[in-house]
């Protein structure tokens, strides 16, 4: 177990929220067609409210603080928030489109202790990237901002969200990352909007294209290992959790709502009404999330993928049941390995009938 895994395990065992993702605004200067938030201000927390929240997060034991949006740099107090977070000894990671980064801003971020910035880049071609962000010139401006961040020694990761229209460009973005000294991360999952609107799901790439991505060693590393059959399901797997959402991590909206994760919009409380610590310790919703073990999952507990699946409980929740399968992850498991998941079989009874299981000693 690595130091980080060990730390996460300890935080989970002790019930410490080691990581918090805080969206400071949903306003944005881009209009990405797959985005899961609206771009309005429905009453964002003030600077003082955020400062108070950060003090609470520090006391709760949060170490990793991700500041995101919307576009966080649209807040005129963004640097003030980062400076205050730094004074409270958070490890700050910033998610921005970098369009507004200039030389002074990059230097200020460096001086304030920001060491990691993530920028979404959809393509190495302007016509594709700008077509997704709906902001002409955005690729050029984002790349200029990234170069300035790199010149300050700030670690930059290009997040490449794949959707219909850019799935053929992942190699190009990967190469671009190498050229500018950035890391590359691939995200093939389009999520429903936080409002529950699922219309953006039509942008998800089909399984055939996903297969091509999963067979690309530049993107996934060791293809044989990545696409290997799932490990056997044992008692440890059955006693395990899906992920850290609600256990050692959570998400807070610009309005103070607390969710288990940005992809898991289950309202657990609001920091304008209760303290963060009270929500974290006492929310019935968080307690329910924490109570769920793999063996409690309605369909997935009998799935052969259980030990290797990236099942997202938030996506399952948005499909109607946090204990149910997430169809996007069922598809990913299937595309990776060629093995049909229990969730897919449940949706297609004809598939389930291909296998008949009866207890030993019983007679048909």
């Amino acid at each position, binding site marked *: 177990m690595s*130091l980080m895994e060990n730390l996460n395990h300890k935080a989970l065992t002790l019930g410490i929220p*080691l990581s918090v993702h805080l969206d400071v605004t949903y306003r944005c200067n881009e209009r990405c067609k797959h985005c899961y938030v609206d771009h309005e201000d429905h009453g964002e927390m003030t600077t003082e409210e955020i400062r108070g929240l950060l003090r609470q997060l*520090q006391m709760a*034991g*949060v170490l990793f603080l991700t500041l995101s949006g919307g576009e966080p740099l649209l807040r005129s107090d963004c640097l003030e928030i980062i400076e205050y977070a730094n004074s409270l*000894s958070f490890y700050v990671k910033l998610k921005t489109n970098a369009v507004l980064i200039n030389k002074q801003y990059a230097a200020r971020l460096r001086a304030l202790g920001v060491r990691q910035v993530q920028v979404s880049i959809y393509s190495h071609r302007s016509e594709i990237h700008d077509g997704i962000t709906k902001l002409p010139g955005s690729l050029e401006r984002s790349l200029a901002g990234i170069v300035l961040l790199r010149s300050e020694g700030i670690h930059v990761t290009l997040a490449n969200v794949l959707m219909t229209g850019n799935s053929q460009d992942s190699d190009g973005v990967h190469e671009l990352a190498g050229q500018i000294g950035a890391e590359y991360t691939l995200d093939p999952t389009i999520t429903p909007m936080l409002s529950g609107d699922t219309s953006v799901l039509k942008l998800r790439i089909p399984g055939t294209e996903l297969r091509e991505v999963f067979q690309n060693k530049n993107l996934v590393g060791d293809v044989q290992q990545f696409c290997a059959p799932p490990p056997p399901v044992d008692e440890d797997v059955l006693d395990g959790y899906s992920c850290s959402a609600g256990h050692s991590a959570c998400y807070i909206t610009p309005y103070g709502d607390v969710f288990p994760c940005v992809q898991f919009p289950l309202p657990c409380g609001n920091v304008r009404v209760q303290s963060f610590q009270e929500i974290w310790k006492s929310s019935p919703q968080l307690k329910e999330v924490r109570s769920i073990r793999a063996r409690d999952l309605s369909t997935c507990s009998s799935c052969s993928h259980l030990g290797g699946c990236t099942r997202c409980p938030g996506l399952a929740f948005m499909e109607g049941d946090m204990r149910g399968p997430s169809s996007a992850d069922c598809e990913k498991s299937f595309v990776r390995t060629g093995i049909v998941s229990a969730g897919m079989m449940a949706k297609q009874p004809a598939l389930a009938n291909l296998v008949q299981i009866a207890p030993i000693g019983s007679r048909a």
Partner: protein
Amino acid sequence: MNEKYVARSKTIASRIVGGETAIMSAVDSTLFVLNEVATEIWLAADGETPLSDIVKRRICEEFEVSADEAYSDAEEFVDALAHHGILQTAAYPIPETGESASVTP
């Protein structure tokens, strides 16, 4: 023995988790986890207290080890952290430090 003063760097991200201190290096984003003894030194590194005093009061009395042995280990430890920019060390007191104190939830 030349005196040595130690101070926590200001831009360090750190938290105490279950008695151990998790620290992210600002230099290379490396994670360090300090055990209980190292955490005592880390917490006492205010820039004003000599390392020998920290060892005597926080280590020898708490953990029942000899001063010479503990000081040698502590010096090696603070030099290693200083190399990663996590601690500052100097032959004289280091002013205006201690803003990045760890918090125990």
